[in-house]
């Protein structure tokens, strides 16, 4: 399997980034829910600290991912797609990329506005993104929550589309993001 993309399929590095981010986003949802359910205490602090560290990791991976996409060919969509499907696919992908940035950035702003400094797994401390500000915290918290729902909905659309490509349209749109043997 090639490291770089071709116009026919995603290369190994793009696939690695895609599936790594999938795993990290699932981790984020689980960590956030565990942390929110915990009473204020050492474990809640630890869970949120992990949530923030993983979020920053996703932000860094998103930067690498966009850069890699820009430096590589992008696999083309099948010719069989109708124009509206093509547009929908592009919009979904753009939304997903934007959310990969918006989620960690609003989270970072939220925690800075609340006056909680952020470190990356305790290894180094990040600067405060914004000054401490209660109103900004509230706004960012609501934005972060809302975007989480938008991300959930967009991911659903993305999954439904990939399943349709694989089982209904029987093209290789899903397969080309999987480390399978090249069919052509």
């Amino acid at each position, binding site marked *: 399997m090639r490291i770089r993309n071709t116009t026919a399929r995603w290369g190994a590095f793009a696939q690695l980034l895609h599936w790594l981010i999938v795993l990290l986003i699932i981790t984020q949802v689980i960590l956030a829910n565990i942390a929110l359910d915990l009473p204020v205490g*050492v474990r809640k602090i630890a869970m949120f600290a992990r949530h923030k560290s993983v979020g920053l990791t996703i932000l860094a991976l998103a930067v690498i991912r966009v850069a890699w996409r820009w430096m590589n060919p992008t696999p083309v969509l099948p010719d069989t797609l109708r124009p509206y499907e093509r547009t929908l696919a592009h919009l979904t992908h753009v939304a997903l990329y934007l959310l990969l940035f918006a989620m960690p950035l609003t989270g970072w702003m939220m925690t800075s506005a609340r006056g*909680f400094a952020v470190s990356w797994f305790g290894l180094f401390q990040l600067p405060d993104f914004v000054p401490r500000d209660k109103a900004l915290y509230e706004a960012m918290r609501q934005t972060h929550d809302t975007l989480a729902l938008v991300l959930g909905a967009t991911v659903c659309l993305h999954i439904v589309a990939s399943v349709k490509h694989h089982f209904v349209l029987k093209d290789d749109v899903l397969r080309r993001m999987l480390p399978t043997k090249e069919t052509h």
Partner: protein
Amino acid sequence: MRKAETAAYATRTLRCMLAACVPMLAAAAPAANTSAPAANTAAGSAATRYTLDAAHSTLEYQFVQAGARNKGLFHKFAVTLSFSPSALPQSRLEVVVETASLDTGDQDRDDTMRSADLLDVAQYPQARFSATSITRTAAGYDAAGKLTIRGVTRVAHVPFTFRSSEQQGRSVGYLAGKLLLHRLDFGIGQGEWKSTDGVGNEVTVSYALQLLPAR
């Protein structure tokens, strides 16, 4: 993850976040400083008695939470100082901090820090430092004395620098410094808070005080 699960998680995330954040809407206690009357200790005539200019003084602390340095401050504290570089034996320093006036900018965190497992402000509303001797050091001065926090008294050396300047015909004193404490030395951290994984043991207290001569 199946989409139904994803949607359920997302919905739950929103609900939990909203529920968890309601208490935070309460506004922080308004800042109000108090200053103690001038020292009435047996200060020698050579030591100047000062009172705290609370509006221009800060008492802050830094601690590590989840690997990151966080800051807070105390709004209410009283300082009694009799001081003169040329009359150190007659110099006195006493600081009383209203522990409930702590403020880290977050209501949940502040309430937690006030609770019985941490500063226990209901039981121990004041923290106190009383210097028994003030000596000169290479960097400034050292106030040696007793530091009482959360009912535990320990010997402490409070380093500080002092300078004074004439402003509008009167001498204004500036006292500043940093003190490294270990919270567990004072029992700040009972139960699960004895762990230093989430919140570090080290707490750096910083003070920058402006002092006016007592009338």
